[in-house]
């Protein structure tokens, strides 16, 4: 007996099975949901990251047209494609009323490090499209190296004693660009995820930025059936927060019933195995400040 309220998620898939992502990959969940919302009339730009494998390596799994783009310029892909569509509409090649959604998706390394200039440029020009940063908190496709969004103390192959710096707060940087929409997403909260992507899809032209918190079983060293559980604990502990910034106004979209201690999140993951009690306290303080401090 199935009586389902989740209409938004029970839609046709344009991202198909048979792809080479790791078992339990949060990217598979995210891409399926994005495609369910954006539908067939959309064009993708996928940076040279984990997600280019299912989308561009033969036999590919993405049914829509897609551009395999280098790491740095994936935001520029949005700029170029939306300009092309605008011109073709003006020339009457594409009917003016036809809605075509352009989006780009790329890893956190591409977005927060290598593609930061292109991203900031596209946002500042307010080019029309949706940008998804798939934040698995390291360069995963090349074998787990730190990025600027890797959290403090996390092990990677390039931070074998734990990363010294804190996680870069990219969504806030993007909000400072005065774009129409910025939102954080988590693969543990599909309703919240889908609602935000729908909202961006239905907004007027402009640059919309999303950051998907995506726990990577391979890189974070946890069993692959726990992807959603780890994602959920990130939110329930306040390590990752779900909010949106609509035309500059900040709005929390999910508040944990009772915020859990950060250790509940950390203890599930091998990448945090070497943490001392002091390290965990430091992380807890970081979360507390983020959640309760000024500007939160």
């Amino acid at each position, binding site marked *: 007996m*199935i009586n389902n309220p989740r209409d938004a998620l029970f839609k046709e898939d344009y991202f*198909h*099975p048979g792809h080479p992502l790791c078992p339990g990959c949060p990217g598979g969940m995210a891409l*399926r949901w994005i495609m369910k919302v954006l539908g*067939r009339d959309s064009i993708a730009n996928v940076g040279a990251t984990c997600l280019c494998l299912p989308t561009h390596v033969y036999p*590919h799994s993405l049914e829509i047209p897609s551009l395999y783009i280098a790491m740095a310029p994936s935001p520029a892909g949005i700029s170029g494609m939306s300009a092309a569509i605008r011109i073709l509409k003006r020339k009457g090649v594409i009917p003016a009323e036809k809605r075509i959604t352009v989006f780009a998706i790329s890893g956190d390394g591409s977005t927060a490090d290598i593609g930061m200039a292109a991203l900031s440029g596209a946002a500042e020009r307010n080019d029309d499209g949706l940008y998804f940063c798939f934040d698995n908190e390291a360069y995963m496709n090349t074998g787990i190296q730190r990025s600027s969004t890797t959290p403090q103390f996390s092990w990677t192959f390039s931070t074998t004693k734990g990363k010294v710096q804190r996680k870069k707060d990219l969504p806030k940087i993007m909000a400072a660009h005065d774009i129409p929409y910025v939102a954080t997403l988590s693969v543990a909260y*599909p309703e919240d995820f889908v609602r935000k992507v729908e909202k961006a899809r239905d907004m007027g032209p402009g640059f919309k930025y999303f950051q998907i918190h995506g726990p990577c*079983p391979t890189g974070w060293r946890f069993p692959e059936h726990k*992807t959603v559980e780890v994602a*959920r604990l990130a939110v329930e502990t306040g390590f990752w927060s779900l909010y949106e910034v609509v035309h500059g106004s900040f709005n929390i979209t999910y508040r944990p019933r009772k915020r859990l201690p950060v250790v509940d999140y950390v203890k599930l993951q091998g990448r945090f195995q070497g943490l001392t009690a002091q390290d965990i306290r430091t992380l807890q303080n970081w979360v507390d400040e983020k959640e309760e401090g000024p500007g939160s």
Partner: protein
Amino acid sequence: MSEWKQVGPDAQKRYTYQELPIGDASIGMPSERRKTGLWRYLRPRFVRRFSPCSEACPAGNDVEGFLAFAQQGRYGEALDTLLGESPLPGVCGRVCFHPCESACNRGAFDEAVSIQGLERFVADGEPTSLPVPGPSRKEKVAIIGSGPAGLTCAYHLRRLGYEVTVFEKQAVLGGMLRLGIPTYRLPRSVLDREIDRILSLGVKVETGCRVGHDIPWEHLLTWDAVFLAAGAHAALSLGIPGDSAQEVISGTAWLEAVNLGRPVSVGSRVGIIGGGNTAVDCARAALRLGSNPVIVYRRTRNEMPAMEAEIEEALQEGIEIQWLTSPIAVRRRNGKLVGLECIRNRLCKPEPGGRARPEPIDGTEFVMEIDTVISAVGETVEEAYLPPGLKGEQEGAVWVDSWGRTSLPGLWAGGDVATDPRMVVHAIGAGKRAALSIHASFTGEDLVELGRRLRTGAKGAFSIDRYLNDDLPGVELVNEVVGPDHLNLHYAEPLERAALPRLDADQRVRDFSEVNLGCDEQRARAEAQRCFRCGECRGCGNCYVFCPDGSVLFDPSAHEFRIDYEYCKGCGVCGNECPTGAIVMTAEGEV
């Protein structure tokens, strides 16, 4: 128009939508796909496992099953489900000690589901279809006693097609349900309705016929099978000086008189000795007849065998209970009972496996002024009426094996007369157990094998409905009980348990009208929503939503989910996110 480069060697279509490869003329998909199912070493399977509530119900009710219907407001089908296992849901919905609720997984989250309240609500409605007699079989079965054990056995034997005759020494049917339990706990309209439903299956009854007295045992031994369900009605004596006085009444005999509407006398201050249901019911009935009762019990409230709710209700009604007190003699003056001499106890450490033993404290003797004594210290089996040569156990109970067989061939026993715990729901379970066991003795089916197939968990409950209607659920049934650790409680919302209304204490002591009022549809519906539906797919769709490989398929016509093993990589996310424990992961190759 420019030529577009093909995407992949097998891209079937060129882009024809003007120039852009979108919309109706998408780029298409390659005709081959990677068979990622080959990566899998753990296989997710949709199964149906048992809920702890169903396992804990001695009558074998499909608790989760009836609650699933109740959640959707399909109360008729909910009642059909209950009637598949027990003919007395309206009775159990009122007087059962509800071990199901103690086992409910929701207890580990907030509070157990009010299963008994919902059983009552559902049982007070109408079923969508009535149980029917099975295709008629030649064997005849005699049942001695029309209490819950006998009635249940008769009901299921009729569903199995046997000719059944119930012999009852009383003029009325129901056993302790009618003779013992007072109407303020079990209105007779409820009992009559359920007994009528049983009789309508074509059960023959011989009332006023005491086997071993009105007809001899030898007469019954010519039947193909006999089920002995005569209960335990002989009162144990107090064993103190003066207890044979006329004013010392047996609790069960007194309740029987009250319940059958015979004239009874009870003094103005009655002392009731004992701590079980009989004692508490005597006190509450005496109160309603205008007396001032006091219960004398040798241990503390915690050790009282009476049901907790009953003790609580008695205290609300203002009944006095003297705990840690034992009677030592009945005092008389001028041939009249004037008091009960008592002594205070302290509790000693319990012996292993036993209850705490009361020990009298010297010098604490006192006299309680009373004019009537009701003795309710326990009942035993009337051995005089049992067939000779029957193996017994302590307190005269008849020995039975795990399928209700006695030491004599062709004779089964169950309920209070046998070694079963003395509760209505155990008597119902014993009646069902005997029905299946008697049936198997005729068909030659192997009981061990039947037990394995029909059992619900490991506490002795089994389903006769699964035997009678072998249209098993579409998914594989796995005999495992789902505990709190199998559930994903993140998906549970805290919801307050519905309080079940009662009559006000001062109003209820005026007469014998029902104390517990039951709940209305709205409250029942809300309470049913609290059930997690442990062990069964409740259709939340988490598996479909979260599968990173799009390998959980939803079939809207069959209204069910299916796993596409060609592509499923066996990550187990679906199993982890299943709120009810209906997906299990098994090593590839094991199944």
